[in-house]
């Protein structure tokens, strides 16, 4: 589904991604973890071109996303992205946040978009808040609406950039529950997160990143019980200590 071919990226003199060469299979649930500054957020943002790359190639569904003929907006419409800061549109209700893109991009009529949005809000447990403005919702509720919004475009791939990092601890659970539920659907999911419990339960595979490189890739069981790379061992030890 996703292929990184020798991908590198620099921010000025600093190399954020160093020669990333990996693949993500269709339907796979991947968790990317690592210390701050390891490049995991940068990596996930290159998939829908919120960040560009300086070397290498990225393929989504077999197509080079940087090739000259690529329709950027169509690419993004097929990929769902959930932000750490939610980024809901404050001037629109929860329902309107979910129907904006389908209607404006001509994918659905007002009625169809509304029906689908309501179904999705129901799925994330917020059908009763369909007419609420983001300012009237808690952080956890906003993030769940953000997930519904990403799903409204019926994407084939879902990306989560630290979806629970900005939430108060008591709200993390409700968002993870939604993500766990989604994982059962068979969608390809890539999730950058610190929530190791979630990774253990849901992920098919875990990538450990540090200093711009993928240092270890393993099943959750193997990664959490028998980490191979010394940096991964160090990272897990620190997490357990915390």
């Amino acid at each position, binding site marked *: 589904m996703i292929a990184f071919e020798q991908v590198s990226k620099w921010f000025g003199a600093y190399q954020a991604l160093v020669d990333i060469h990996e693949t993500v299979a269709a339907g796979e649930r991947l968790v990317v973890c690592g210390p701050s500054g390891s490049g995991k957020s940068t990596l996930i943002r290159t998939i829908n071109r919120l960040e560009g790359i300086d070397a290498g190639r990225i393929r989504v569904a077999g197509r080079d996303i940087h090739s000259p003929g690529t329709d950027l907006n169509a690419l993004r419409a097929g*990929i769902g992205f959930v932000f750490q800061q939610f980024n809901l*549109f*404050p001037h629109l209700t929860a329902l309107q946040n979910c129907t*904006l893109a389908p209607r404006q991009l001509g994918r659905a009529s007002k009625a169809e978009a509304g029906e689908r949005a309501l179904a999705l809000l129901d799925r994330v447990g917020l059908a009763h808040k369909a007419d609420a403005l*983001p300012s009237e919702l808690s952080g956890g509720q906003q993030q769940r609406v953000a997930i519904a919004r*990403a799903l409204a475009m019926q994407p084939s791939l879902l990306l989560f950039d630290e979806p629970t990092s900005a939430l108060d601890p008591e709200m993390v659970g409700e968002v993870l529950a939604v993500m766990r539920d989604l994982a059962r659907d068979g969608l390809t999911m890539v999730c950058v997160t610190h929530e190791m419990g979630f990774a253990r339960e849901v992920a098919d595979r875990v990538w450990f990143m540090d200093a711009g490189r993928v240092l270890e890739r393993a099943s959750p069981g193997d990664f959490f019980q028998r980490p191979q790379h010394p940096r991964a061992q160090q990272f897990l030890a620190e997490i357990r200590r915390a």
Partner: protein
Amino acid sequence: MGFLEMIDTYWLYFLVGQYPDGPLGGLALTLLLATLGLLLALPLGLVLGLARICPWRWLRWPVTGFVFVVRGTPLLMVVFWAYFFLPSVTGHKTGQFSTMLIALVIFDAAYLAEIVRAGLQALPRGQMEAARALGLSYLGALRSVLLPQGLRHMLPSLVNQFAATIKETSLGYIIGLAEISFIATQVNTLVFTLPTQIYLLLGATYFVLCFGLTRLAYRLERRLAQRLHTP
């Protein structure tokens, strides 16, 4: 002539100038000029403001240059340029009203461009990212997500700009436009003995208009801050 007598004789002249026996003047002209000026400047200012932050350099640079030049020049200079050169550009003699109107539109558009630019740049970066991540185009994102939020934030600034435009109309005096400052001086020449009172009255008229508007802008700002307050 006493103060009250002066009011009694000239109140209509203050309000509408020589109308209907001549062109519109006085307070009515001031308000008409300010309203028309701001209304026409708004779409131009919006376009210029968007151009100031668009990703295309060929558009951004000339517009930035234009805005900088207009904002670095006194309004009176813009009025004089319009006054002396509009006739040769348009081919026929341009009246004082049209001259003043065009000068105001150009001048205000440059200031509105900055208000638009600041209003859009104050929005969190995540809004544009979220909109683009959903697949909306740059213009689509502007239209559905950024501008609706931005314009709401800009409303107090726009009301303040209207108050500023009312004050700007006073420069029409210098090219002989019969707006309220000009009328006041006319009356002063006729009456001769009440300059203090006449000019205080002139000041009071502007004060009522502009103070009212700036208070409105202040209330709008407060209401806006309350409404968008996130828990």
